[in-house]
């Protein structure tokens, strides 16, 4: 394996991804990510110099809506899936210390 994924990398990526991996998952993730990156490194065989990265497949531009009000109050419907709610709000653990 040419891509060695360190504990620090896994720790860092799991902070970004908000995932809490068990010791076992962590080891597996190191292996998986290493071998995936080895595989992905195959792309380096390709000379892509001067090739524009293609994020959108079709040259469709300027897709707009007009500034017209269409939506009304749909709170109860939208809140119906909230794990916890209070006073018409989504309730979460406190965000400030």
């Amino acid at each position, binding site marked *: 394996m040419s891509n060695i994924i360190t504990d620090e990398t896994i720790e860092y990526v799991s902070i970004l991804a908000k995932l809490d991996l068990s010791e076992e998952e962590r080891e597996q993730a190191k292996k998986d990510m290493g071998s995936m990156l080895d595989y992905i490194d195959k792309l380096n065989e390709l000379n892509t110099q001067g090739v524009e990265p293609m994020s959108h497949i079709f040259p469709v531009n300027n897709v707009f809506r007009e500034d017209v*009000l*269409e939506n009304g109050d*749909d*709170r109860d419907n939208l809140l119906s899936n909230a794990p916890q709610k209070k006073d018409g709000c989504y*309730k979460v653990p*406190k965000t*400030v210390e």
Partner: protein
Amino acid sequence: MKQYEMVIGLEVHVELATKTKIFCSCTTQFGGSPNTHTCPVCTGMPGSLPVLNKQVVEYAMAVGIATNCDITRYSKFDRKNYFYPDNPQNYQISQLYLPICRNGYVEIETQSGTKKIGIHEIHMEEDAGKLIHDEWEDCTLVDYNRSGVPLIEIVSEPDLRSAQEVITYLEKLRLLIQYLGASDCKLNEGSMRADVNLSIRPVGAQEYGTRTEMKNLNSFKAISRAIEAEKLRQIELIEEGKTVIQETRRWDDNKEYSYAMRSKEDAQDYRYFPDPDLAPVVVTQEWVDSILNRQPEFRDAKIKRYIEDFKIPEYDAQIITSSKHLADIFEETVELSGQPKEASNWIMVETMHILKVREMEPEKVSFSPSNLAKLIKLIESGKINRTVAKEVFEVIFDKDMDPEKYVEENGLIMESDEGALKEIIQKIVDANPKSVEDFHGGKEKALGFLVGQAMKETKGKANPALINKILKEILMH
């Protein structure tokens, strides 16, 4: 001690005055019960997709043109990924790689003359929801009414050197944007917010020091205080041989103190990438031209026109145009009343007086020009005198009352019935023989006293000129 100078760059967020949000057709109206201005898109429901509001692009371009920016011909939206509950998708749709405007500047007046402040870029993005901290249950409540309200972020170059320059620059931006109608720029409602990037360096140095970013600045005063405090904090660190850490700090204006916002869970790696759900924005020259043609008359042009067309002093023109809102009221009042001088007086004297006493922002003025115009006409036609007019104006200012109705209902129409007045004045003359004597003895002051008595008797609504005339007639007889 060494002399230090500050190097300041600003990131100014401005909420645009569109009717609907940037990516869905929910209202942008301020306030409202929590989550009543939301839909699947702005609450990040699975499967929902954003569609760009065209007006957002037009406002952003208008601000870019007004700040001498290049308009990017091929611009895209990127996702900024970070977890926080005010951000329902856990990514904010913003622009990193290809923002809509770049390389502009605005000019500000400083003690040492005109100075150009560079605009690095202006990009479009969505606002986040509001977090309400519930003291009772020790939890946080999330309201997504603001989620998806369109913002532009105006990023300046690090060209500012003092708190005064920062305030001047912000005032300039605010006026410009208000004139464009692109935002009301209310700091207290959060429709204009500034983050301050600040570093210090010894005077004369070329290199920049390490900067910090200060957030949560809700007023010009807070901005000034935060800048001064951060300057001192950084100087102290350096003088003590310590280093400034590049970090984001939150300003607490009550404690006049800032603290670092870092935590282990904030990696500050936003993993920006082009949003696959949104199409690129392509701007043609025709589109730029059409925005350019629709640009409004800005402040300098207004001042010139007021002086030339309305013949009002430059000082007055400057005060009135210092708020687009006041200028709008003024111009419409002139239009309706045909009396620029009068209209200007009511704004310069009475309006400014009330604003000062009540510590109000000019933007809060809510009376309609038509009522002020009616008031001016009531005076012009002699139906009320100036004393009454001042009283009526306060009612207009507070309740936007129709002055014609008000004076009618309160019996404030000027007493111009000569017969009735004569009777009143005769009584006053009879009751004040001493004053009559003094008058005849050459004491002009006595006349003033008698006029005052008559005004008092008529509860201020008599025509003062008429009182003078009648009084003199009686006394000379």
